[in-house]
């Protein structure tokens, strides 16, 4: 790892100005991806801005019909939160299935979605619930947030501050996990709520995506049988040592049915 200057600002405003003030600064959340990237010298920031001292980015709250999770909230905190369990049990279950306990103690929701790994779990939840990503500059509806492989709508120097989820009537998540890392080979999040039915897939493509055909079928009949015959095309899906594109396409249907079945 190349050396860098380290900063731990105490407020969002200080973090934003530290980010502007440095040459090639990067934000540090849980470090569970960024530190590995720096060890491999795939990233060599001049400065790291550690967000762990910024109180505004912490905490979980229910505000009216929405659940708000601060960007620096860890996966372990989301998994054990009674507020999250009461609001959407599938979301707590998803957070509790990320990696292993040590990764969950450090990794954060903000870091996960800013990183936009194609196999990460949270993108499926945000897309599957129709969440809103709140930054220090604006609010970004999730449908325009994940823009490609490791790419998001975030601009240079923009800081995710929290994620806001609308309350679903029911929701479910099922993932076929890579047995080594627990990342999703395919994960599907489904929900039925005020905005209709949403079906979001992670792990299968370059970034999380929705399956309109399944959403329409489930809107008429929210049951696994309603989507049994709906397949997604394998062209454009990921293919690697873990699974071929064809196998991933097959798994999308299986995981979608399991997600519907588990929805509560």
């Amino acid at each position, binding site marked *: 790892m190349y050396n860098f200057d380290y900063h731990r600002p105490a407020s969002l405003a200080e973090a934003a100005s530290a980010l502007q003030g440095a040459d090639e600064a990067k934000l540090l959340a849980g470090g569970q991806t960024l530190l590995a990237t720096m060890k491999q010298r795939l990233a060599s920031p001049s400065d*790291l801005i550690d967000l762990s001292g910024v109180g505004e980015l912490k905490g979980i709250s229910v505000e009216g019909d929405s659940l708000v999770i601060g960007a620096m909230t860890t996966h372990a905190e989301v998994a054990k939160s009674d507020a999250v369990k009461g609001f959407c049990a599938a979301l707590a279950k998803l957070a509790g299935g990320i990696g292993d306990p040590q990764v969950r103690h450090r990794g954060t929701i903000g870091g996960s979605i800013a990183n936009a790994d194609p196999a990460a779990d949270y993108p499926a939840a945000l897309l599957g619930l129709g969440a809103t990503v709140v930054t220090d500059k604006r609010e970004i509806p999730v449908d325009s947030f994940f823009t490609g492989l490791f790419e998001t709508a975030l601009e240079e120097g923009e800081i995710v501050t929290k994620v806001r989820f609308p309350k679903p009537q029911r929701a479910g998540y099922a993932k076929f996990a890579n047995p080594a890392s627990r990342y999703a080979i395919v994960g599907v999040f489904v929900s039925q709520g005020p905005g209709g039915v949403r079906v979001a897939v992670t792990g299968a493509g370059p970034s999380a995506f929705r399956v309109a055909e399944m959403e329409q079928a489930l809107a008429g009949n929210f049951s696994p049988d309603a989507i049994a015959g709906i397949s997604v095309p394998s062209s454009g899906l990921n293919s690697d040592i873990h699974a071929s594109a064809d196998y991933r396409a097959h798994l999308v249907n299986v995981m979608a049915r399991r997600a519907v079945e588990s929805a509560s």
Partner: protein
Amino acid sequence: MPSVTMKVNGKEVTADVEPRTLLVEFLRQNLALTGTHVGCDTSQCGACVVLVDGNSVKSCTMLAMQADGDEVTTIEGLANGELHPVQAAFKEHHGLQCGFCTPGMVMSAVDLLSKNAKPSESEIRHWLEGNFCRCTGYHNIVKAIQSAAERMSA
């Protein structure tokens, strides 16, 4: 070089470190606490697990600076005149062979039992997802943790 202060095994330590110093390097090189091992250096194996403010973390994937102001417990901090019940149970149930993974396994188990005093076998196995052992086949590790749980909640 910036200075970092933390409480390690109950004792406050302060040192000047390069910001890129990993927590595990700080423990092993600055403090000569070599009980914490480095197996993979890529957050896969769990040989480097320590407790930071009561939560198990992989110290190869955390900067020493990130632990500034925190309380850190390593394998050296567990025994108190006699072995910690988890250590004693690993010894009694042959929960180790070469011993390389053992400090991380024990720290992970201590964290589990602090959060879930009576875990089921399945909960123990799931909790150990981030701790690899290349020798034991895990069975005796799980048995040791079950036995420690019984002794600690008795």
